[in-house]
């Protein structure tokens, strides 16, 4: 059995009336890229702040590196790197100095620190901006600086709370690649996001949380296999009578149909020829359509099936 890096048991956290974490459980093993996926307000940041002992919690137990985590466990804190959801840098210091400041809280030796800071700058690709003050950086570059400040000291456990928010796709890919590389070099990573594509792309284990609860977990494939939805057939179509929608809903293996904004969404459970059944139905009834295609279920479908709401709906 692999070494457990983080163990969270029955964690309860209340903000006055609001229950942010409701008997939340989570275990992270060494070497994982652990994805914590949940919509806004589901409790991801709260979980992380509890793990870090920043927050008092009402109940539960947290172990990090096998030991009970407390706010005075400086030895444990030394091995953790955090990329906070909010950018945390000093406006008065330039890129290099900011990274050096935060790295300096962990690494005393000047030579080593210099090397580490330079590594971090290279890692996030800020080589051409070392003298820039944060105010002069674009949003994406600022995020990258924020990441560099969190990981420069080469920690064993890296916690990243939505590091890619407001980052353009190119930078985002660079960050995701970087995370994979950090993981290859031995770091265990906790990665929170409400972008399921990112989580699917890099995480070796995914935990889906909603309203402070652990609702499902496993690898991306395991999660998708665990639900009854196996295929979604989508048809772009301008006009469709309600009676047709109803009829399609009665086709074999189909368990849910929705027609909204010129798009017909057909959810299927099992069956290998679902798309041809739909095409046949349209042919028999001489209905014109623009496009028809089939998709495998996504993590969003997993989320939808478990919680009854869509990850994406809540993003807006």
């Amino acid at each position, binding site marked *: 059995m692999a070494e457990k890096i983080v163990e969270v048991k029955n964690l309860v956290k209340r*903000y006055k009336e609001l229950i942010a974490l409701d008997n939340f459980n989570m275990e992270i093993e060494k070497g994982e890229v652990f994805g914590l996926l949940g919509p806004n307000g589901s409790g991801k940041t709260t979980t992380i*702040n509890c793990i*870090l*002992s*920043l*927050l*008092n919690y009402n109940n539960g137990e947290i172990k990090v590196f096998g030991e009970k985590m407390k*706010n*005075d466990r*400086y*030895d444990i*804190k*030394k091995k*953790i790197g*955090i990329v*906070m959801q*909010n*950018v*945390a*840098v*000093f406006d*008065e*210091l330039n890129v290099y*100095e900011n990274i*050096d*400041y*935060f790295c*300096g*809280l*962990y690494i*005393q030796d000047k030579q080593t620190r210099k090397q580490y800071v330079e590594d971090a700058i290279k890692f996030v690709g800020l080589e051409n901006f070392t003298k820039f003050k944060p105010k002069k950086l674009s949003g994406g570059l600022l995020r990258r600086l924020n990441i560099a*400040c*969190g990981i420069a000291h080469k920690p064993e456990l890296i916690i990243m709370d939505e590091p890619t928010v407001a980052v353009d796709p190119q930078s985002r890919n660079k960050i995701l690649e970087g995370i994979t590389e950090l993981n290859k070099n031995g770091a265990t990573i906790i990665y929170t996001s409400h972008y399921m594509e990112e989580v699917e792309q890099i995480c070796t284990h995914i935990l889906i949380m909603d309203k402070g609860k652990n609702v499902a977990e496993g690898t991306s494939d395991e999660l998708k296999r665990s639900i009854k939805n196996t295929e979604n057939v989508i048809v772009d179509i301008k006009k469709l009578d309600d009676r047709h929608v109803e009829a399609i809903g009665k086709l074999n293996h189909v368990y849910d149909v929705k027609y909204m904004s010129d798009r017909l969404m057909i959810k299927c459970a099992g069956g290998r020829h679902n798309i041809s059944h739909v095409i046949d139905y349209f042919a028999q009834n001489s209905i014109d359509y623009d496009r028809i295609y089939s998709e495998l279920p996504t993590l969003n479908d997993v989320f939808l099936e478990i919680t009854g709401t869509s990850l994406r709906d809540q993003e807006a």
Partner: protein
Amino acid sequence: MFMNLLGKQLKLGFRDKSNIFWTLMFPVLLGTLFYIAFGSIYDTFLQEPVKTAVVFETDNPEVISNTKSFLEGLSLNDGSTKLLDISYLEYSEAEALLKDDEKVNGIIKVADTGRLSLDIYSNGVRSTIQQNVVTSYNQSLELIERTAKDHPENLADVIAGLQKDTSHIAAKSLVGDNKDPFLTYFYSLLSMTALFASLSSLKIGNRSQANMSAVGARANVSPVRRMMFQATGFVSSYIVQTVVLEIALLYMMFVLKINFGGDKPLILATAALASLVGVSLGFFIGNIGSFRIEKKEGILVAVTLVGCSLSGLMYGDMKAIITEHCPIVNKLNPAAVISDAFYCLNMFGPGERYLQTVIFMLGISSVFIILGLVLGRKVSYDSV
């Protein structure tokens, strides 16, 4: 770790341009403004002797010559300028001139007993100086007479002592209090600058508490203790603010040529102590809770401005009025105590009254620091 972090905190402090601007440019600009505004008044009474008519109501040659040599011997602090510009006149002539304020500012009458008395036409800085001359001369005279009666054996010593001190005592007690009523404004300006130092130390708490800022959260998850952030933050803030205050002070002393009194190193040391009060105040307020830093800044600006107006920043006589009606306010108002420290140093030198202000400043700083540490020791939060 301490030195490393201190170095970085100093960098942060010296780069905080808006803070430096406020704490340095404000006293420099305001001081210059005061200087310009009061400049004309300054010149007249500091550089020109006070025009005084002296009328002898006695024929006693000894009294006449003693008084003459005393009055003519008075000079301003530096000794180069005479304090009084004396004309010996008959009373009727003197009275005519007195009505015309430009010609003489007061009439000193010399009685047969050697006592002096003063007639003035209108109250003002000049007549106060004359009044002080008269009072201090009469007091010396009384002392001599009493000694002659009770302890004639000491008389020689007393007279020698008085003579040695005459010009000094005269200059100090006369010129002292009234030399420069506008000095009050500069004392207040210094205490304001010292208290505005709190706006910089305010950030110490903010930067080390997770529920106050993102960098504070980062500080809290690092393996460095809160105390280390608080201590380095405090020391760096103190260094930055003391440098700023000393620069402002030196500017007033050497560019504006404001005369704060004799002992320059002690004046600079007083400023360093004053800045400790300001920095401690900010440290305390910075740690009191997680509400917005803008609100805390508001509190500090209010405390500083109210404190300084009570100690005479807007209206020079304010302090005197408060001392008369509600002395405790001046004793507890940091702004008043700071300006009082400069004042005492100037008036009475590093004596007991000055020492009291020093003790108060050290005391209130300790209280602020301890409160700040107690309030800021929390390491886990209910909400961040």
